[in-house]
């Protein structure tokens, strides 16, 4: 009886202590401010022929945001911010992009929208975001200076993707140094508003002593490049420049099959591993110059991204996700600089980050710029990878600074 009484008393003490500890924990929780959430909406084609790109970008954003969330979030002052990514499918159409953007803004109440691969998507998304003053981050643009691009008239638009023609000077310098006898060039480009870039490249090539003897154009959606290259090679080029095309691999195959043996330049960030995988012919994979990252020799940051991808996804790594990773990374760097997550303050902060090295990216130090060309400093400039493929093997030249 006496023992039972002692046991009961002991139980009572233990229960009370447990209740007290629990109450203290709750008190601590309620007294510490919960993390706030920043919602980022993405609009990319995740179905259809460009889905591989759309998915790669979505994954790149997600991987970076997972990283920052796993580290406890972004601390700005006394506040901590966690990030949520909400992805929608643009279906590679203006209507799809518009519907997706409107859903993200009106229903999901996102703080930022990021995305777009084609210019018609960018225009449709910006139409939706600008009406609600939600900042829109352009993920990709094929034609810098297009009406969908940044301008002083578009205060809520920023492009955290480099201009493709940034690669011109890098690739031309390498061509002149490595292939000094190649003096006649044919540019092969999709028939979609590339005229300004073609003019720009032609002028730059002339300065370094290369004559553009012709331009071959192909319709968007082309799968057979033999007709285009039949025409292009009739102009007797010594070098071919396949301008900004995700189908550069098929273009290379067509050029080599038709007997072209000279240097082939692809100034799109298609990784050399994609060339090796798709072309699969060492004799064709010779004298190929690309602005894709050599994934067999990644730097530490790229290795980290690749490791995170492998841990989360079973598909092979797609190097386009590095650009997307950088976009969310740069966004958080701008938030830290602005000491705020508010869109207008973050964009203003980005516009001040123009000194070389203001921004960290997977490719090296970068900065914002574009005031001279676009009227606003809202375009990313960062080093570009340069890789040559010889006899099926990659030679990584390095991350080259844009002039």
């Amino acid at each position, binding site marked *: 009886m006496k023992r039972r009484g002692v046991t009961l008393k002991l139980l009572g003490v233990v229960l009370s202590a447990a209740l007290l500890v629990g109450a203290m924990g709750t008190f601590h929780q309620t007294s510490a401010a919960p993390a706030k959430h920043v919602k980022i909406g993405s609009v990319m084609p995740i179905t259809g022929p460009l889905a591989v790109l759309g998915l790669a970008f979505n994954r790149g954003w997600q991987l970076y945001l997972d990283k920052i969330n796993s580290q406890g979030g972004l601390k700005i002052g006394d506040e901590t911010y966690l990030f949520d990514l909400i992805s929608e499918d643009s279906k590679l159409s203006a209507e799809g992009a518009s519907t997706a953007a409107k859903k993200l803004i009106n229903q999901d109440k996102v703080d930022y929208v990021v995305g777009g691969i084609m210019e018609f998507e960018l225009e449709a998304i910006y139409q939706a975001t600008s009406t609600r003053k939600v900042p829109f981050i352009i993920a990709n643009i094929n034609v810098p200076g297009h009406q969908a691009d940044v301008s002083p008239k578009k205060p809520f638009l920023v492009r955290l993707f480099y201009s493709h023609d940034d690669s011109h000077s890098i690739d031309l310098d390498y061509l002149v140094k490595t292939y000094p006898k190649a003096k006649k060039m044919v540019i092969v480009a999709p028939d979609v508003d590339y005229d300004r870039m073609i003019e720009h490249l032609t002028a730059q090539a002339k300065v370094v002593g290369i004559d553009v003897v012709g331009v071959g154009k192909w*319709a968007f959606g082309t799968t*057979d490049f*033999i*007709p285009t290259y*039949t025409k292009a090679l009739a102009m007797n080029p010594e070098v071919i420049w396949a301008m900004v095309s995700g189908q550069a691999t098929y273009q290379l195959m067509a050029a080599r*099959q038709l007997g072209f043996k000279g240097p082939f330049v692809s100034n799109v960030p298609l990784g050399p591993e994609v060339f090796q995988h798709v072309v699969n012919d060492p004799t064709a994979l010779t004298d190929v110059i690309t602005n894709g990252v050599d994934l067999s020799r990644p730097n530490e940051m790229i290795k980290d991204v690749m490791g995170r991808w492998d841990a989360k996804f079973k*598909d092979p790594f797609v190097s386009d996700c590095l650009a997307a990773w950088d976009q969310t990374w740069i966004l958080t760097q701008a938030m830290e600089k602005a000491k705020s997550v508010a869109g207008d303050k973050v964009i203003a902060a980005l516009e001040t980050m123009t000194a070389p090295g203001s921004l960290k990216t997977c490719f090296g130090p970068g900065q914002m710029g574009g005031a001279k060309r676009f009227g606003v400093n809202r375009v990313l400039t960062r080093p570009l990878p340069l890789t040559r493929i010889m006899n099926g093997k990659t030679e990584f030249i390095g991350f080259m600074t844009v002039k």
Partner: protein
Amino acid sequence: MNLQVQMWLQAVVNGVALGWLYIVMALGLTWILSIMGILQLAHGEVYMIGAYVVYYLCSSLGLNVYFSILISMVVMAAFGIFLERFLFRVRADRDPVLTPIVVSTGLSLILTSGAVAGFGLYEKSIPRLLYGSVRLFGGAVPKDRLLAIIFSAAALLLLFLFLKRSRWGQAIMASAQNREGALLRGIDPNQMAMISMAIGCAMAALAGALAGSILMLQPYMGSQPMLKGLVIIVLGGLGSLPGAFVGGMLLGLIDGTIPVIFGPAAAALAPLIIVILILLIRPTGMFGHE
């Protein structure tokens, strides 16, 4: 030889190669239409899966590409038998026109989504049939395109011989011309439909494998050829095999030569303009009947 002339001749050779690919694709489609009376809207996806079968046989089992193409044709023929038996067989409780259209549309979506899920979106390629090129009329012609012409012509010849010289072929033709009459002669229309579907799918697999090697391999590769196939059977005449041949060759020559001579904008418009003109003159197609 003058560079311009060389260029045009190269373009014509390429057009002929493309034409043969289109013929094999369209022949399967029009064959199924003429024998079974159904428009198989998932034919482009059968073409795509045939190509992926070749890819996996080559990359996973290390088989020779030619042998893989043969196996793919057999596999897709078996798939065709399955489709006919369980999805497209004529039944009293099924609308003969609407049901196949609805079923094949659904099948197309399932096969495409399945391909994306199963094969992934990452770029793949089928080993080339042959590497390098030959000099023809002063210009370089890819060897694999010449080989594609030979394979396609051989397939067409075999099909022709099968139809004309074999009992099964004769039975299929009889069934296509008069289903009730053939039934009275003891020819099982369901069996004929099954064989026809198998042949149609095998042709699609051959076209897909050749295209996957020459052009590109990805889950959405079937939609454009399907559209071309539909244009060809309308152009050639619904259910007409000679029409599919002529229509396919015409479209192939247009696709091979117009971009070279007139540029990309004309290449997109020319096939449509020519189809409209032909249909204005002959609304039933070049070899079609009322």
